[in-house]
């Protein structure tokens, strides 16, 4: 499976994501600079975490209006898988690819710690490496991860199996409604999540709970 990582100025977990994709699949992803004319022909497009455009205006708002995001939207509409992590999730929401909003953490502070995630829907290309109901460890590191949506939207997300991950065991770090940590689009080919599975994939990270997301998506490295 071929993948590409989109890089906007101010992103800073691009290197972490590139390392995870490379280590798990054995192949380095294509790197797409935001000013590039198009996204190469790939099966997976990843928007990593960081502070695109310094989080000015609103997290993800400026990157979401970048011309390269029109290309991402086109590919997503054609069924290409799109993964947004942290700032990537914020960008996907601002770009209209996912519903709701990510507000400032309830504590009003940046939070970097390990949380527990429950796999709510394991029946997708992104989550098939896990089993439904499985709880795994995953770090978070964000200032604006407090997921909000109106009740009709929440009902639709829950009813249609579009909640991917929920903060489990009382570890919700940001006040997200329904403990939501990650959601899918309607077609379930776009996933956005706040936690950082790319930072928990090998012994040096103190565990590999995040690895199954990538093995499920990409297949194991040879």
């Amino acid at each position: 499976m071929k993948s590409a990582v989109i890089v906007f100025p101010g992103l800073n977990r691009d290197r972490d994501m590139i390392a995870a994709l490379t280590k798990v699949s054995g192949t380095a992803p294509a790197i797409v600079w935001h000013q590039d004319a198009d996204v190469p022909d790939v099966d997976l497009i990843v928007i990593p975490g960081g502070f695109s455009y310094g989080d000015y205006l609103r997290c993800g708002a400026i990157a979401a209006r970048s011309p390269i995001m029109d290309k991402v939207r086109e590919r997503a509409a054609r069924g290409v898988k799109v993964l947004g992590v942290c700032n990537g999730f914020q960008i996907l929401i601002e770009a209209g690819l996912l519903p709701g909003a990510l507000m400032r953490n309830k504590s009003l502070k940046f939070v970097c710690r390990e949380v527990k995630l429950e796999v709510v829907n394991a029946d997708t290309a992104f989550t098939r490496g896990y089993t439904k109901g499985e709880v795994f460890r995953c770090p978070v590191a964000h200032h604006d991860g407090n997921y909000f949506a109106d009740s009709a939207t929440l009902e639709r997300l829950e009813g249609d199996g579009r909640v991917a991950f929920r903060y489990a065991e009382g570890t919700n770090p940001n006040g997200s409604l329904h403990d939501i940590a990650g959601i899918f689009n309607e077609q379930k080919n776009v996933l956005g999540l706040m936690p950082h599975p790319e930072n928990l994939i090998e012994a040096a990270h103190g565990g590999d709970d995040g690895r199954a997301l990538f093995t499920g998506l990409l297949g194991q490295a040879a």
Partner: protein
Amino acid sequence: MTIPNDIRITPELVADHGLKPDEYQKILDLIGREPTYTELGIFSAMWNEHCSYKSSKKWLKTLPTKGPRVIQGPGENAGVVDIGDDQAIVFKMESHNHPSFIEPYQGAGTGMGGILRDVFTMGARPVAAMNALRFGAPDHEKTRHLVSGVVAGIGGYGNAFGVPTVGGEVEFDERYNGNILVNAFAAGLADTDKIFYSKAEGVGLPVVYLGAKTGRDGVGGATMASAEFGDDIEEKRPTVQVGDPFTEKRLLEACLELMATGAVIAIQDMGAAGLTCSAVEMGAKGDLGIELDLDKVPVREEQMTPYEMMLSESQERMLMVLHPEKEAEARAVFEKWELDFATVGVTTDDLRFRVKWQGDEVANLPIKELGDEAPEYDRPWTAPKVPAPLAAGDVPQMDVADALLALMGGHQTASRRWVYEQYDTLIQGNSLQRPGGDAGVIRVEGHATKGLAFSSDVTPRYCEADPYEGGKQAVAECWRNLTATGAEPLAATDNLNFGNPERPEIMGQLVHAIKGIGEACLALEFPIVSGNVSLYNETNGQGILPTPTIGGVGLLPDWNQMARIGFAAANEVILLIGAPPSRGTHLGQSIYLRDLFGRKDGPAPHVDLAHEKRTGDFVRKLIRSGVATACHDLSDGGLAVGLAEMAVASGIGATVTDLTDQDPVLQYFGEDQGRYLMTVNLDPQGDDLAALWREAEALGIFAPWIGTTGGIDLVLGAARPLPVAELKTAHEGWFPNYMADEAA
């Protein structure tokens, strides 16, 4: 409209620039005429304490700065140390004390920004950060506000920039009520053959300005940082810079890309005293003159005067000398990252620093003398008075369990989780030990087994009681913390925070602390490769505790053989290594006395450097041999707090046997130096442990078996068993409870 440059230089104006009458006379003698207003500003920027080290230079020269692994010692943007495989670690620690007190968020954030720039200016990608923070008493009205703002500011900048914070310190003492300390450390990795320096080479080459535009923020910041505070402090807010980590991140990527093109001859970041200091340093180091044309400087405000442009401390700016044939390539890199790129000057062969603006020459000064001829003082100093030893038998009694619980839940040793969870501690994916242990550890990306350890240490109350022993102790504790992970300590950076050096007793503290630091660095083979001096840390005549912060770096050849502080398993032997036979003896300046009895008397503990070295080398060898399952050095709160921290980190309890012939308070709370706790998974009756003891004995190191891990309680001899959960609640509770109690 034109802006005058011929403001009359009055004695008041000279004084406002922080220049003494004799210093002004020196300027007159040097240039043979009255300086222009811009020139006066340039002199004040170059000759203030912050930039010239005029009070400390004589003493700093005595520090050991060389070693087999040292590639670059003090004098550059940061120190450079060889870590093998053609790679180097580039690091430095620097203070941002005054700005952080005036405007905590921006002050602390730009402190981070400045130190990160020092590192990547040399061609290194930052891989780890630490910060050593000292605030006033917890019950002082400003403390919560300052803690909250400083921590948010460091997080706001470092998190966006994308460097993991792996360690640091937070302490409270009333002596910092009017003058907090924010010491920021950064380290970066570079290839040894791709280190960049500030020395300009070649005549007639373009001097290029890169990064953010110049504004009026921070004008006079370095001069402000070289003066005491008074009640007019709020008026100094405009001298604090405003940071933009988004620009800094782009500047990092652009600089590293630019360096890879081979275009860079010399590079200097614009830190204190901005354009002035960077241009003068590049020229003076290379024995070249520099001519600047201020009309070419990118500005973000209209009608800036040359004075303001030369003294602006706007952040995220760099100055470079480039190969002219590569200028177009260099410009393209900066255009890609949407940063300013402007040729603002040229190198010359006449050793003059010329500044032109709107067709006039507003400054024309001898460049070497601006730096080299800065005043240097041999300030008078008096030897510190060391407190008398505590009277024999002066051991205030308290129940051991109660005392431990109180200390674990007190402001000195309580968990700093509330602070470090606001910092990104795992970005870059290489963090092996995050804050909360003895040292932060990262792996060296691209290498299968190599790791780097980082620690920042000083015990200001020891330095206050005895600057010489305190200086030694700061170095020894840093060295010890690195050792406790299994790392070989390589080198250190020093951030010397003191009061007003014009007072002989303060100067005496500085002189003696440097003496102690130097002796310890020599004995422990731990050279100082970079540093920063922050003086005049006083408010209304009240000086801070002398605080010479030491930031150290250690190397782990194989992080699979690395120790952590948490007990690893039950039923393991606990060894106390390096302590005297009575385990603990020294209560003077301990937190037991200070925090439980309100006493600040007695001498600081003595550091026996030869014993320190032997013990540390032995501990490191045990860790690397694989027998150690956990290790922790003893510091604040002694043996009891050390054991409790190991238990709390893992949730595993322990039972320790008392010595019957020593007061339990001294055994458990004495702060004797050079001690480690280690657990080993060896049979207590077996040959391996017997061999370990024989080796220790041969080295003159006492390493008794004092207890065994296991259970859910920490049992200190005859004291009431303390559930680890209760210790943890106390340990984790203090900080969040304190910060939540806004009304208190």
